[in-house]
């Protein structure tokens, strides 16, 4: 092994250019070696036959070590054999990088560029990545220690070209993007900068851990959909009477009556209907169905902290005025975060009104362990037959979700039918 440079102590044997038994002439390249700076050929010093090679490709060999024997067939070359196979290779095992470039890796993983070398995991978990001297130098100079890299060199050794391939082909991060990734931002999709450089604008804001009320909502909604068999029925009721009543209440002069809104009226109808179709006023807990006589009706309330469902207890005993007053009080408390825990538990049925936001129909999610939830939709004009003529009439949409485990389609539909009648004949209902 020649000493190709003043500071070179060992060289990597890349491969043999002649096979054992080949006749070689002086000056012919027989082996290819690599230092941390460059690649060289080792030339045969004499004419002869390549009798033996003492090292295989991929081994690191101290300089001035015999790497092969050239002579005449049958000649004894034992005294040319190096004393002991050097274990220098240990010194070049790339220690698991202590300071990897997480940002770079994040970038490499965030996109899927054509970087085949990076796609393939190192063959065995335990086996440390072995870098060639030049690869090691490249890694150190660029502060680049990819976690996964498959070497194309002998015995899977990682060559400088392998690292270069990943380094220059994988998308780069702008300095700002790198700092922001270190601060928790995530790289998403393709870089939009020069050469697909990932810029700050390509990053997503750091994820927010769900906390408090949001976590409760998330869990309950997940459980609701996972543990029940929900279906939704959509219908609509002629809202003419409803709107007329509202108009009259508004014009009544009494502040209490004037404050009663469409939602309050529909809530009143829902309570009335639950007394008529009590199957829906129930809870399903651990396979046991609890039917309730008292109607603790909840209503979904959008607050700055998220969705809460205040409960109006014993709503079946309340007049329209009382019900409306209670709903308004609870709504104010909900918006101010002043609800008592008791006001949010023990509901037997829920109403969710998205109609004021213009929603035409939706599939409300049951608030377990309840078995049904009523969605109130927007009021829309619909053509309706009146004798021989077609008129446009205001209709309010109603969306009912039931748990099919305990409420079949027909009872659900019956509830909606009753509710429709109660809405259309609101004067009688209240």
């Amino acid at each position, binding site marked *: 092994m020649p000493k190709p440079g003043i500071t070179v102590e060992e060289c990597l044997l890349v491969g043999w250019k002649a096979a054992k038994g080949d006749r070689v002439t002086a000056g012919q390249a027989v082996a290819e070696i690599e230092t941390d700076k460059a690649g060289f050929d080792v030339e045969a010093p004499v004419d002869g036959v390549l009798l033996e090679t003492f090292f295989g490709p991929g081994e690191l060999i101290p300089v001035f070590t015999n790497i092969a024997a050239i002579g005449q067939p049958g000649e004894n070359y034992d005294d040319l054999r190096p004393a002991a196979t050097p274990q220098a290779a240990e010194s070049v095992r790339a220690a698991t990088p202590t300071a990897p470039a997480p940002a770079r890796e994040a970038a490499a993983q965030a996109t899927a560029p054509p970087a085949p070398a990076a796609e393939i995991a190192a063959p065995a978990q335990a086996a440390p990545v072995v870098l060639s001297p030049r690869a090691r130098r490249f890694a150190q100079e660029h502060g680049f220690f990819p976690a996964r890299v498959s070497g194309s060199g002998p015995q899977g050794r990682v060559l400088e070209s392998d690292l270069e391939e990943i380094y220059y082909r994988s998308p780069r991060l702008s*300095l*700002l993007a790198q*700092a922001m990734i270190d601060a928790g931002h995530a790289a998403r999709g393709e870089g*939009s*900068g*020069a050469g697909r*450089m990932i810029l700050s604008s390509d990053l997503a804001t750091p994820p927010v851990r769900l906390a408090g009320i949001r976590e409760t909502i998330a869990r309950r909604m997940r459980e609701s959909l996972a543990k029940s068999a929900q279906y939704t029925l959509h219908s609509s009721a002629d809202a003419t009477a409803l709107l007329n009543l509202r108009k009259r209440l508004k014009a009544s002069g009494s502040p209490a009556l004037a404050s009663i809104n469409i939602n309050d009226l529909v809530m009143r109808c829902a309570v009335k209907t639950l007394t008529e179709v009590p199957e829906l006023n129930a809870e399903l807990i651990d396979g046991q169905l609890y039917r309730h006589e008292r109607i603790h009706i909840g209503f979904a309330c959008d607050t700055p902290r998220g969705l809460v469902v205040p409960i109006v207890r014993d709503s079946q005993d309340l007049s329209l005025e009382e019900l409306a007053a209670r709903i308004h009080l609870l709504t104010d408390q909900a918006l101010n975060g002043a609800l008592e825990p008791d006001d949010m538990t023990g509901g037997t049925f829920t109403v969710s009104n998205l109609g004021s936001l213009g929603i035409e129909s939706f599939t409300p999610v049951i608030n377990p362990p309840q078995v049904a939830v009523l969605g109130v939709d927007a009021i829309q004009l619909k053509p309706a037959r009146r004798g021989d003529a077609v008129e446009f009439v205001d209709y309010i949409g109603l969306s009912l979700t039931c748990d099919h485990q305990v409420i079949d389609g027909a009872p659900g539909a019956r509830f909606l039918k009753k509710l429709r009648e109660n809405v259309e004949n609101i004067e009688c209902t209240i």
Partner: protein
Amino acid sequence: MHDLIVIGAGPGGYEAAAHAGQMGKRVAVVEKRRVGGACLNVGCIPTKTFLKASKLLFECRNAAKYGIRASEAQLDMPALLARKARIVGTLTRGVETLLNRSGVEAIAGHARLASRNTVNVDGRVLETKNILIATGSRPAVPPVPGIDSSRVLDSSSALELDHVPERLAIIGAGYIGLEFASFFAEAGSKVTVLEMLEETTAAGDAEISKRLTDAIRRSGVDLRFSAAVRRIDGNKIYAGDSELTADYILNATGRVPVVEDLGLDKVGVDYDRKGIRTSDRGKTNIPGVWACGDVTGRKLLAHAATREGIVAVNNMFGQPDRIRYRGIPAVIYTHPEVASVGYSEMELEALGIEYRKSTAPMGVAGRFLIEHEGGSGFVKALVGARYGNVLGVHAIGDGASEFIMAAAFMIETEMRVSDVRELVFPHPTIGEALKEAIVRAG
């Protein structure tokens, strides 16, 4: 069947054609005048040749300040025109060589779209998979009575004057008007600039606009704002309440995209008088029809046109690419120069982006004092409030055009003040003022 026919051989078209040619595509570029477009023939290149002369004239006149005694310097207009022609000639031949070497067929004539993949060049019908419209822009003609007077020049004909007019009126204090004002004032004309608005918007930064206005006025230009031209009568101009007589009137009210007589309506290309609408990949609404440069009305800068053309070519041949304007610098080659890149303060405020700003006088760079005796200027840096990333750089002072690219790199790679601190600028160079301005923002 061509892979691409480019209409217009300006900096958008010829570079795009050459790029496609180098990709091995069958490309033709159609030009009805001379290759090089406005930029090379009647724009960037000739005007900068003129401005070099006026700056040199200024230096000769101030030679004593540099320790040189010289006899009185005189502008030799015919010699300047000859130099301009020589430079334009050299560069035009360079473009022809580039097209030739890239295997691009150059066709002389007027091209019109006949369909989304047919181009008609004076009766000759060419089939193509893609069409890139790069017809550029021409001087705008405002609806002012008498604007068609023989005394009215535009930026093209002003470059053909074989003498320096005694009195020159310039309509418009945009970058074109100010560059001509800068040249003719130095050359000895009595220059009046009439601007409709209350200030020049050429610089994009209020402080720099003000400094530029002051400098232009100091050079002897009568720069009038809120002076809308109402009427031109021969060599008389009626602007605001005043009346003005000039030997020539230069109309420098801006440029408008060339969208007429191209067959755009026939093919249904979406455009209006502000230009052809394109995506940031260079696509028009018609598949296979692309556009770049001034005709899109996007940026009206030669170097932006070049990049837009290359983006379009990359996309048409399967290499996704997108134009980004944030890092494209703009320069006004007046005396003093103005150069800028990135966001302006106005834009940052409109977008609600929090920023810090800092300035450094050009004089912090020793080289500036050496090169520009008596000159002044400053560099303004705008950096993000949170991370200190460079958002915009605006500079006034001679030499700014040469270092603004460094600021563009910083913006393109989102460098922060802390990163810029690690960059080493050669000493002494004027660009040191850039580093100083940014470091001061930290």
